[in-house]
């Protein structure tokens, strides 16, 4: 019974050619503790934090956490262990939201952000640290007003001042930003280069000539 489970649950060990039963029991226990820890904590915990607090080597912790992620990733689990903001955190899976919602006591307040706020946030995420005038210049709108909303929601914070005339305040995104958007880290945002390539590819595919049928108002048609 036990050995069956041990094989079943830890895909990480599948790559391990020789399973050592003695080590396995200790591993199993440590993984159980990690599961309990990830379940208990509210802030995503980094492997370094966990390793330090448990007095275990970080690579061991990381390996076990990864195997937890894989285990919960399987469809028979309704929970997930997720890597968010550089740390691990347990949540329900989004696909079960309809059933789960009915049982949630305190509904979290929705994070309502305007598209302008999201654009500014994206801009800061990519270009940080960045000043308000720089944001305005790129967005082409006189609208740094959303900055206060983003600051109030702790999605961005100040990051010193830029050494130019007027010494404007620099802004950067926070850990809360990663948490709220479920991002592992900033590198998870598609790079600007990737966007560029996608755009180019789209252009090449469509070609300059092939007008797409779904765009209703073909440019050739006469105006009213």
């Amino acid at each position: 019974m036990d050995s069956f489970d041990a094989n079943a649950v830890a895909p990480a060990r599948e790559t391990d050619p020789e399973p050592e039963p003695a080590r396995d029991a200790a591993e199993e226990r440590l993984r159980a503790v990690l599961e309990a820890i990830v379940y208990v904590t509210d802030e995503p915990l980094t492997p370094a934090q966990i390793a330090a607090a448990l007095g275990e080597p970080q690579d061991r912790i990381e390996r076990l956490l990864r195997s937890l992620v894989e285990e919960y990733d399987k469809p028979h689990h309704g929970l997930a262990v997720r890597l968010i903001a550089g740390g691990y955190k347990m949540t329900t899976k989004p696909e079960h939201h309809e059933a789960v919602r009915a049982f949630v006591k305190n509904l979290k307040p929705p994070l309502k952000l305007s598209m302008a706020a999201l654009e500014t946030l994206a801009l800061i995420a990519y270009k940080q640290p960045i000043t308000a005038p720089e944001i305005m210049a790129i967005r082409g709108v006189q609208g740094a007003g959303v900055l206060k909303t983003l600051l109030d929601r702790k999605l961005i914070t100040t990051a010193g001042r830029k050494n130019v005339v007027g010494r404007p305040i620099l802004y950067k995104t926070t850990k809360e930003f990663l948490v709220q958007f479920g991002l592992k880290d900033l590198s998870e945002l598609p790079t600007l280069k990737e966007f560029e390539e996608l755009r180019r590819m789209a252009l090449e595919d469509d070609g300059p000539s092939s007008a797409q049928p779904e765009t209703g108002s073909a440019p050739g048609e006469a105006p009213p």
Partner: protein
Amino acid sequence: MSSPLNVQLEHYEGPLDLLLDLIRKQEIDIYDIPIARITAQYLEYMQRAAELDIELGAEFVYMAATLIHIKSRMLLPRDPALAELEPEEDPRRELVERLLEHERFKHAAEMLYQKRILEEAVWSNPQIHQFLDDEEEPGLAVTLFDLVKVLEQVLERARRRPVYEVADEDVSVPEMMARLKELLEHTPAGETLSVRELFERQKSRRAVVAMFLAILEMAKLQAIRLVQKDLFGDIAIQRHRRFAEVLACPEALAAIEEGYR
């Protein structure tokens, strides 16, 4: 002239949004924008907005000027000799770069929006409170922005509070009564002053005693009411409905003044 604007006047956040929309809707190669056509369409949009009394920001006007400038530069014949020495940059290049960058952030914003939808469908139920000691006071995680926000609030609060602190700590009961009266006059109807806070604001023992006696005298005069919501709770001072009437009576005040002489 073909127009992609023939259905209705859409709302655009800024001129870059409008330009991008014109370009993408007509499937124009962004690296080779027909500047004359786009400029005409852009101006048409502005024209229609004006007709419909829709106010466009200054940035729309600025962009119009930029477009016209680019158009004129493209119309100007180049000096072949100069072109050989210093090949002129495409006048559209800077605009194209800005447009592309703008578009990237629009996509990134959409991606964030998607991510957020996913996060809203997800719940966490951390049980850390079961492992924390009870005495740990609930606090708030703090950013630099909080610091300046809080400072503003504190200063604002201080500004609204009538100034009654005195450097001279030798304050008499009638003087303290006058200050209390002034304070209460500045307190909105229905609101209360905290007795504890009043005491805490006094800088000397004498002032605390004077405040204490002043409160008692005013209660005796039925100028104020003392309210205590819970047993051992803070005592609050409220204006009595006869507040103005009583304190307008000079004889009563004079009698008290005499009593403390």
